[in-house]
């Protein structure tokens, strides 16, 4: 097996990926073909190796290892799960080192250059909702990492394959039968996973920051009617800090950045069950008169 090195831009991060797993490299190229290069060497943030271990598991029920800086932060995974392992591992690298940014645990999409930020715990439906909004034309910023530059208060995109889990996969296929999905991974730590590929525009515009304009706390609830309610700003502040990976770590910087975000965003809670109606409701916010103005104020 011959090793190949690729360079992938993931938002503000440039990642070197070395692997000899052909299926993995093909999958990586499928998802990131618009931001992937094979040529000239350039300065990297992370050099990741996805390789088989040098033991019997190289051949028998094969496994792969995730390595960064010669560290192996995780146990080996089954070789067929190399792509989810890469995605998960890269998130780990970013979450543990990129404290130059304030990191929100939130999905986000942009209408023009105005961003809708959707924080939420796993299971709240933020990935599914981000995917649905994106499939209807909103620019995908990220499905779970909101990178905020504290000094500017803007949001840096990091469009990646959106990992749809279990019933969300069917929900998205029903919503858009032509949705560009990658292979199915039946057994990951989060259950059955299939990724949605971000469109070309989101990927090639990934270096263009967006201005946070709407803060929506989504909650999926089977059978519920789509309900969008304004949220008190103090409560929104509290909940946003709760959904910030490095809020405690950044201390005062994060306090000021969250306060700034809350001031410039309209805040809502949103209960939904049907994706079609949910997308219509949220896109409606962007079409309201005055939406543009307030975001820039």
């Amino acid at each position, binding site marked *: 097996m011959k090793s190949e090195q690729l360079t992938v831009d993931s938002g*503000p*991060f*440039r990642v*070197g990926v070395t692997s000899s797993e052909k299926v993995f490299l093909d999958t990586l190229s499928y998802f990131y073909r618009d931001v992937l290069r094979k040529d000239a*060497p*350039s*300065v*990297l*943030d992370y*050099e990741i190796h996805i390789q088989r271990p040098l033991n019997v598991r190289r051949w028998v029920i094969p496994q792969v290892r995730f390595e960064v*800086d*010669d*560290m192996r*932060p*995780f*146990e080996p995974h089954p070789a067929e799960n190399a792509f989810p392992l890469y995605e*998960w591992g890269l*998130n*780990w690298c970013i*979450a543990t*080192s*990129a*404290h*130059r*940014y304030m990191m929100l*645990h939130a999905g986000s999409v942009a209408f023009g250059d105005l961003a809708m930020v959707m924080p939420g715990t*796993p299971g709240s439906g933020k990935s599914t909702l981000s995917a649905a909004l994106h499939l209807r034309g909103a620019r995908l910023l990220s499905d*779970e990492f909101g990178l905020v530059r504290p000094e500017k208060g803007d949001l840096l995109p990091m469009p990646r394959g959106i990992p749809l889990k279990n019933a969300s996969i069917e929900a998205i296929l029903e919503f858009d039968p032509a949705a560009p999905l990658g292979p199915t991974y039946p057994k990951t730590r989060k259950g059955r996973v299939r990724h949605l590929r971000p469109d070309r525009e989101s990927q090639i515009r990934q270096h263009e920051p967006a201005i946070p304009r709407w803060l929506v706390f989504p909650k999926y609830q089977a059978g519920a009617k789509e309900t969008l309610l304004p949220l008190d700003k103090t409560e929104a502040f509290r909940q946003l800090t709760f959904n910030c*990976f*490095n809020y*405690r*770590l*950044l*201390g005062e*910087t994060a306090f000021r950045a969250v306060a700034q975000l809350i001031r410039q965003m309209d805040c809502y809670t949103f209960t939904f069950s049907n994706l079609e109606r949910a997308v219509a409701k949220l896109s409606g916010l962007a079409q309201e008169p005055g939406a543009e103005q307030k975001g820039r104020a």
Partner: protein
Amino acid sequence: MNLLNKSLRNPEIVRCWKADDWNRFLPLVRNARLLGRCLFLFEQHGLLEVVPQRLVDQFRGALAQTRYLQVQAKRELRQVQRVLDNEGIPLMALKGVAYLAARLPPSGWRSLSDIDLLVREQDIEPAEQALKRAGWVPSGEFDDYDQHYYREWMHEVPPLVHHNRETEVDMHHNLAPPVSRIRIDAARLWEDAVMAPEEYGRQVAVLSPVDMLLHNAVHLFMNDELRGGLRDVVDFRDLFEHFLGQDAAFEEHLLARARALGCGRPLYYAVATSHRLAGLEPSAGFLGRVERYAPVRPVAWFMVWLIEQALAPQRLGMWQTAVANQMLFVRSHWVRMPPGMLIRHLWHKTFKSKVPATHDAEMPG
């Protein structure tokens, strides 16, 4: 010597670095936990415009994390102080938390996940009991042998951590294990201790400048397999330069104290290594005089090789580094335990010790 060592010795070389060089540099810096230090290095030499923005962002991210850990460490120190003050037990801050308390140069960039403290030998048990009554618990599982090992043979109690917090507290009563070849009379350290500036209305004692450097040397070259790594070597350089700037006779004092405490050999290793790998430039006369404490030639050369493999490998994950670490590990045990004790220790660690299960690193979300 690798790119990190070269840049510490002569930062100007980065002016002609290409992408490949930066890509070899960054993992070395991350591994050595010197990201914050590099930001200072390049800033100080007016090189920030030459450094790729990606690296500057990585440096800044690491520095933000360091600031957080420093606040935690200071808070932990204050909490421990409060408890021990009530018991009338005097306390000295060591290593990272001492640099922080005394506002010495490494505090600008140095990260820390535990705080090292010194109490008098007769106080160590009452201090441990007092902390346990106040909510501290052992930070891991220690079996009877481990307990015995820490308490009887080493110079500390098993590390403690408060049940609500994350910063570990390592409490020692000496700078070197009582069983090791280097025996330091702790009473003399207390005699020379100095008070750090007041913070939050409190002051804490730290080692005198010369003792601080000797402790750094003993810790790196006698205690463990160079566990503090290049970071401790860089600490040595930064502290040395700082104290030399304040006291022209500092080198004299350092030599005299090393002689008095019997720490000549570790001082030699620390000075030679810091000179070679971290760019320390003491006066020529000083280097020559320290070399008198070097071991016989073949041993000195072999140690240079070992230290170089361990602290300055061309890239990470080389087999030479693994071999060197293994040999340094054995050596560190050899210098701190008499042979009979060493055999018993290795026997226990090999066959009796409970090996903790490995866990995946934690991932938010």
